[in-house]
């Protein structure tokens, strides 16, 4: 049953080639990719990058569609004349970089060996229908081996805490309140690694659709971003620091710096509650015996505590919360605003 539901997650496979003329070209796809998406993927695949940096694996999200791009060199390959590099582009509904990196790698080997997309298509179809694909090397690719939960936990929250310490709680608050976070790092790999671990801070939602790890400053992509209530967006372009209308929290990774925008300062005021959470995170992350997943679990327990406070409040006052109810409880002002906005984010507010 699990295999069947997962099968439907894969949406398309495509092929981009860079030839000796220096052109990057969509040469093949199955079943189809819209023109808008084709343009976007061409931008994402490193072949069009003028700096010529080669990223073997890139992933990202556009309008709830995940794309995974595996790139390989094809220099002096008898099967591929005039082609210097090529990228296999997989699009899917689910977030699972490891799965699609492995599958993309298998497809790459196939294409390199045969020089024709037909073999690739065969592999793609067998994964669709049977959830398995024979690799060119020994062994085979099995969809079952790649659990979504594993993918969620693949990022290291401990690294985040070790870099930002107590300031991690700002990221926690922003995520809890469904605010807009923008992360900047000039190196794409660092960006992908960092951003994917952030949604674990709000494990109770298990919502990875807020993650847009690789966004260009492009109208089409920014429009898609603006539709979302809250998001984590990664940018390699340093120009993003000037676009304050796009973020509530700005993370400058190379400088280890977190900036809260003027608009969000009120809602993001910190109090004792935040201090508690922050200390909890730091303690958990500093423990060398605790794994990343255990840290995530500890934090999730604390989050659940906070949420249960809210639910109990809601039950006292009918089914939904109002600001007046919160006021009656006489929380410290920072806690009050946090709870109020959290209630809104969790849809527990009476309207």
């Amino acid at each position, binding site marked *: 049953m699990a295999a069947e539901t997962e099968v439907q997650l894969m949406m398309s496979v495509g092929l981009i080639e860079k*030839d000796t003329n220096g052109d990057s070209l969509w040469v093949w796809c199955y079943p189809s990719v819209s023109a808008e998406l084709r343009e976007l993927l061409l931008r994402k695949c490193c072949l069009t990058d003028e700096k010529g940096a080669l990223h073997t694996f890139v992933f990202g999200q556009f309008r709830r569609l995940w794309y995974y791009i595996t790139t390989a060199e094809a220099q002096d390959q008898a099967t591929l004349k005039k082609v210097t590099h090529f990228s296999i582009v997989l699009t899917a509904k689910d977030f699972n970089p490891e799965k699609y990196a492995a599958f993309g790698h298998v497809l790459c080997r196939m294409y390199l060996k045969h020089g*024709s*997309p037909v073999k690739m298509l065969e592999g793609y179809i067998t994964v669709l229908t049977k959830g398995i694909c024979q690799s060119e090397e020994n062994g085979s690719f099995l969809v079952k081996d790649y659990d979504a939960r594993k993918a969620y936990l693949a990022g290291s929250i401990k690294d985040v805490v070790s870099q930002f310490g107590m300031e991690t709680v700002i990221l926690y608050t922003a995520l809890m309140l469904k605010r807009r976070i923008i992360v900047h790092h000039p190196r794409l790999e660092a960006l992908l690694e960092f951003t994917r671990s952030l949604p674990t801070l709000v494990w109770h939602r298990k919502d990875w659709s807020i993650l847009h790890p690789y966004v260009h400053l492009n109208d089409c992509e920014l429009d898609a971003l603006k539709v979302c*209530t809250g998001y984590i967006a990664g940018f390699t372009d340093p120009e993003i620091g000037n676009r304050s209308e796009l973020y509530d929290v700005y993370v400058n990774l190379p400088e280890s710096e977190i900036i809260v925008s*003027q608009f969000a300062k009120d809602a993001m005021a910190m109090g004792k509650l935040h201090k508690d959470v922050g200390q909890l995170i730091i303690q958990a992350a500093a423990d060398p015996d605790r794994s990343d997943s255990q840290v995530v679990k500890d934090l999730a327990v604390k989050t659940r505590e906070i949420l249960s406070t809210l639910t109990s409040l809601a039950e006292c006052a009918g089914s939904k919360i109002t600001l007046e109810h919160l006021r009656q409880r006489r929380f410290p002002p920072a806690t009050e605003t946090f709870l109020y*906005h959290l209630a*809104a984010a969790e849809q527990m*507010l009476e309207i």
Partner: protein
Amino acid sequence: MRRYKAVEGGSSHPLQVGEEVQSVKQFSSELIVEAVVRCLRVIEPSLANGLSHILPPGMSARFRLGMSLAQACQDVGYKGEIGYQTFLYSNEPEIRALLMFLVEKLPRESSESSDQPAGKSVLLQRSIAFKIKSQLAVPWIPPSCRVPFLCKHQNSDLAHGFHAQHLSIPQTTVLSGKKIPKEVKEYCEKHLLPVTAQPSQHAFLCASLLERNLADISAVQEWESEWNSQGLASRLSIDEYKSRKRQRLQKRLHDQLRHAVQQNQENQHTARSSSDLADLLKSFGAGPCGHEILVKGTRFTHTEKFTFTQESEKMVQQMQAAADSLPSSKQSEKEVQARQEEEVTGLQQQIEDIAVKIEEVSLDIKKLTVSVMQVSDEIHQKELENEEKSGSVQVKSKTVELLPDAENNLGKLQVLVDNSAKRIVNLASQWEKHRAPLIKEHRQLKELCGNKELESSRKVSEIKGLHEKIRQSADEAKKKEELYKQLVTEYENLPKDVSRSAYTQRILEIVGNIKKQKEEITKILSDTKDLQKEINNLTGKLDRTFAVTDELDAKRDESVRKAYKYLAALHEVNALDSENIQTPLLNLEKILNDYKAIRQENSVLAAKIRDA
């Protein structure tokens, strides 16, 4: 030297003597000829009329010029030895004598006007210069003290500031090739004022026309230079290039505006966060653009602005009322004070009320924005859920349909899936047969295209080079044209009746002369060699003698000492003489070279004659 300069300075083109020329000895042939010709022009214009003051490059022409110059000098009355060699192979004493003679001959009172035929333009320029000089000499006098004569020059009414206005001139269409719309044509024909009537004051007309003309010319020049530098390199047609430039400009404007608006908004936000009321009020008042941008502000800013304006209006009304009542009332001070206090407390009460209201409203706004966020998020989520569910419902309904005969249908589906997979792979391989060649062709064409691009860029640079060359050639052609015209006029001025045979005769004569001269020269050369030998002998002897004399004891006798002194002086003079001997030798070399040149020219001429 200064003397010569002074004399030559009087003529229209002063003689240019370089800094390095310190004495007559250093005069070159060119300089000598120029000096003599200029002097002759002043002394006897009729004689010097046909003489150029520039030494021509051809040897025979030089020779001719030298001859005629010598003749002219003799005509003026110079009695000394003179010939072409005086000018071409100069020798200091001769030149000095000649120049001294010429300077003596120069007219005492320099009467320039009679010396040179004055053209119209010269006359005009002179009269202008004279007028300006005389007007400058007159001191400025305040308007009230001016006599009628001065009013004419010092009246500021006559002078206008350079004030240009825009002139409406119909665009000529010959160049652009576009048709004028009918309406525009009609407007130009019936309604447009003539250019002379367009400026608001007639005095602006001249300036406006000048300005307009200059603007047009510079626009054309600018466009040309831009097109040649950037336009050609972009490899677009003129229209395309212009439209692209327009787009670029528009985009830049757009960016700038966006940036400015954004900054303004940020400024407002920072102002809003500060709780000081006065600051807030100031921020509303500050900057004329602030209000315009506020139209785009949030509801919060709107309500705030609204309450504040209301409040201020009320204040103004109350102030007015108080002011009205003041002069009319004659109540005691106490009453006035009491009333004022009353008013103050009333106003304070009002302010407090309003502040409370503002707080309430802002709280409401806060609540509303939060709820809006929640609702929009909810809607978003629900929509997504809906989409997912409708998809799964479809699948499930199909499954339910197939449920009754599950075993069978499962098998059927499996077969269907397998078949479809096979079919798709089959189709893909077929598609590949078409796709691969097409991609290949595309790449080939692209490569070709790239090559062509390379070629074309090469050609563009070539074209640029050609453009440059064309411009240079045009310039050159212009210069040549001028030269040609000058030569034609010169040619027309020349006497026409000189026949070819006369020339050939003369050339033959010259050749004969030169032959004789050559013989003489060889003779002189051998003589000179002999002389040189003798001189060497004598110098040797002299040196030896001097050495012997030197050894003698000179102090013993007075007469001997004197004799020794004279001998030493004689020795010095000798040394000087030997230096002087060097010059004729140099001249001799020059003469030999010139002789060779003449021979060459003659052979060329002889060949020409033979051809003819």
